[in-house]
């Protein structure tokens, strides 16, 4: 094993020199991301030998992946819980509180109705309502992981958030269909 491999395999937080936490200083993250990309990006090695260029691509790919994961609060939480040994079991565990499911179904119906009626304003309204809910829940998620360290509750919330983010893409699809 070379030193290079060890670093390449480092976890995303270590790679960017950040503490392992759900609440994260996005500015520091971007600063590190840019500092590393400024070294490894293929554009910086366009004139180098083949092996250097291949390596640059692998590194830039690795850094992009890490950045995308940490930038999105949902992906960051899933990754962090996995690192902490509390995998949210997204595929296998689909149990959700009843009241949550009911509220999601209502939202989904509203989306379908607005789509059928080609009502762009209504879709926008549902979208911003949902975005707001998601934002509040991410704040709670950071609290659960970083402060109270209730990883079970955090994993449950991550699963709910994935549900909501899926609905968000459905709204985006509906908006696209309506405005086309």
């Amino acid at each position: 094993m070379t030193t290079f491999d060890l670093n390449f395999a480092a976890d995303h937080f270590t790679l960017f020199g950040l503490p392992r936490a759900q609440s994260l200083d996005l500015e520091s993250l971007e600063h590190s991301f840019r500092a590393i990309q400024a070294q490894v990006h293929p554009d910086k090695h366009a004139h180098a030998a083949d092996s250097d260029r291949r390596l640059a691509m692998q590194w830039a790919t690795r850094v992009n992946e890490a950045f995308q994961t940490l930038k999105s609060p949902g992906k960051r939480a899933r990754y962090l819980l996995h690192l902490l040994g509390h995998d949210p079991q997204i595929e296998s565990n689909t149990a959700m509180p009843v009241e949550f499911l009911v509220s999601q179904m209502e939202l989904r119906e509203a989306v379908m109705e607005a789509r059928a009626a080609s009502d762009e304003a209504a879709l926008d309204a549902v979208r911003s309502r949902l975005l707001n809910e998601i934002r509040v829940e991410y704040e709670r998620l950071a609290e659960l992981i970083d402060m109270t360290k209730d990883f079970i509750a955090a994993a449950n919330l991550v699963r709910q958030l994935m549900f909501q983010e899926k609905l968000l893409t459905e709204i985006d699809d509906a908006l696209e269909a309506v405005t086309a």
Partner: protein
Amino acid sequence: MALLQIAEPGESAAPHEHRLAVGIDLGTTNSLVATVRSGMSVVLNDVQGRPMLPSVVSYAADGSVDVGYGAEAKQSIDPKNTIISVKRFMGRGRRDIAHIETLPYDFVDTEGMVKLKTIAGNKTPVEISAEILKTLRNRAEASLGGELTGAVITVPAYFDDAQRQATKDAARIAGLNVLRLLNEPTAAAIAYGLDNSAEGIYAVFDLGGGTFDISILRLSKGVFEVMATGGDSALGGDDFDHRIFCWIIEQAKLAPLSPQDARLLQMRAREAKEQLSQHGQAPITVKLGSGEYVDLMLTTEIFTDITRTLVQKTLVPTKKALRDAGLTVVDVRGIVMVGGSTRMPQIQHAVAELFKQEPLNNLDPEKVVALGAAIQANLLAGNRAAGDDWLLLDVIPLSLGLETMGGLVEKVVPRNSTIPIARAQEFTTFKDGQTAMAIQVVQGERELVSDCRSLARFELRGIPPMVAGAARIRVTFQVDADGLLSVTAREQTSGHEARVEVKPSYGLSDDEIATMLKDSFSHASDDAFRRALKEAQVEAQRLIEATQSALHEDASLLSTLERAHIDGGVAKLQAVIMGDDRRAIDEAMRDLSAATNEFAARRMNQSVKRALAGRKIDQLSL
């Protein structure tokens, strides 16, 4: 003591020679080539002082090829052999081409990418585009007085893998070393951003002759980050011409047109459109070969009316790109207008209305892409001046996926992911004892495979027979910095691997390209052998220089034994470099590359560490 080097005024004082690099805007209607000269990006004109090269290629019976203005003059005389807007055919099959019935060409009935029957034989869009690129390469080499080190070629951001691959193939056939395929709006953003020290969120609205792109970028000190891109790779000024063309036929109640008359009317339609950007009305008077007369007046109102749906088609992807970026119009600081078609008043109005601000028109919409490409080419070629250090982070425009059971698409790489990117997905067998698996790669946003573009199909064979569901096949997508895809599949339990260079279903095989290269060289004055040898020598020299400079900087990373191994490789390559045995050069290059692999890895690792260390110092000093 070393002698002081004193440079001529205007010449670089750098110890390394200035490498000749250009940016090429290979446009639907016009193409341009630009370079950085004395720190300034400039478009290279032809001998008559004209910056544009019309993207028109005309083939003659004697095998000669005319490109540009000369070809343009032939378009209504010999429409079958004079190809305009060939960019619309790049990486496209017959079914993909709009209004194919109104085009004057004879299409060869083939699978995959379209071919055109001309008097000089069947031609693919790749070969036709290569003629345009060759003309620009010759112009640049004559103007700069030397052979080009490399070129950055721009492509519409919304080009898919097949269209990008076709563009890269065309450049290869034209004898160009492609430093990078660069997205057109990103190139424009570089030119605009560096010129205006722009900071913040900008939208680049790029409506060309045949393609439409919208890119949302975040510009901050030294970084151009594309947040989202969208568009329509079959929407442009040509479509606005076509609406006028149809309007003329309808208004003048014309009988079915001959190919010559059709081309003549298309030219008049385009002229009328251009006139409307300056005036409120445009007279259209034509005497057709059929003896019929056309005498009409097109007003801005009529034009706006008959093109309303086309304008709408630009706004839909614009809104979508904003949503994808997680932004609204109030976040956008400026809208940079690119492409000649943005001169149309109805486009200007629609953009201003959507973004609630006047778009930026302070740079030449037809030159800005080439100028930006030249700046990037200069940087990539290694002609870096102090302060020339920016980072460009671009995205993939369309999602990549795999076919799963029932013809559904499983998305593997979502659109607007920053490139380069890799994603892996695991699959399993569904029958006992299954030993092969067909993998179909698609690009697009729809859920059904049949609605997406098929990029490639390949088979992974030699899976050890197991019960259904036991095999684990890991398929990895790697998209490089050009936005081009390669796919590898690996059976995890046996380690059986299939590496697939994704040759798009609508692309050319390596054999076809080799033949075209040979054809191209047999027509050119220099012979293929000498050129290939020269290329190998240049490449070898580059490798030696890169290795020596790395050794100079980081020799401490190597043990004595490793150092001796690399020195040996350099010596071996130096021994063969000036000879005429190309295979010996290739072999020595391969050996040296292999010897420096580990060294390169350690250097990269070190530079990452330095980057992080730098960050911490920054933070401490705050």
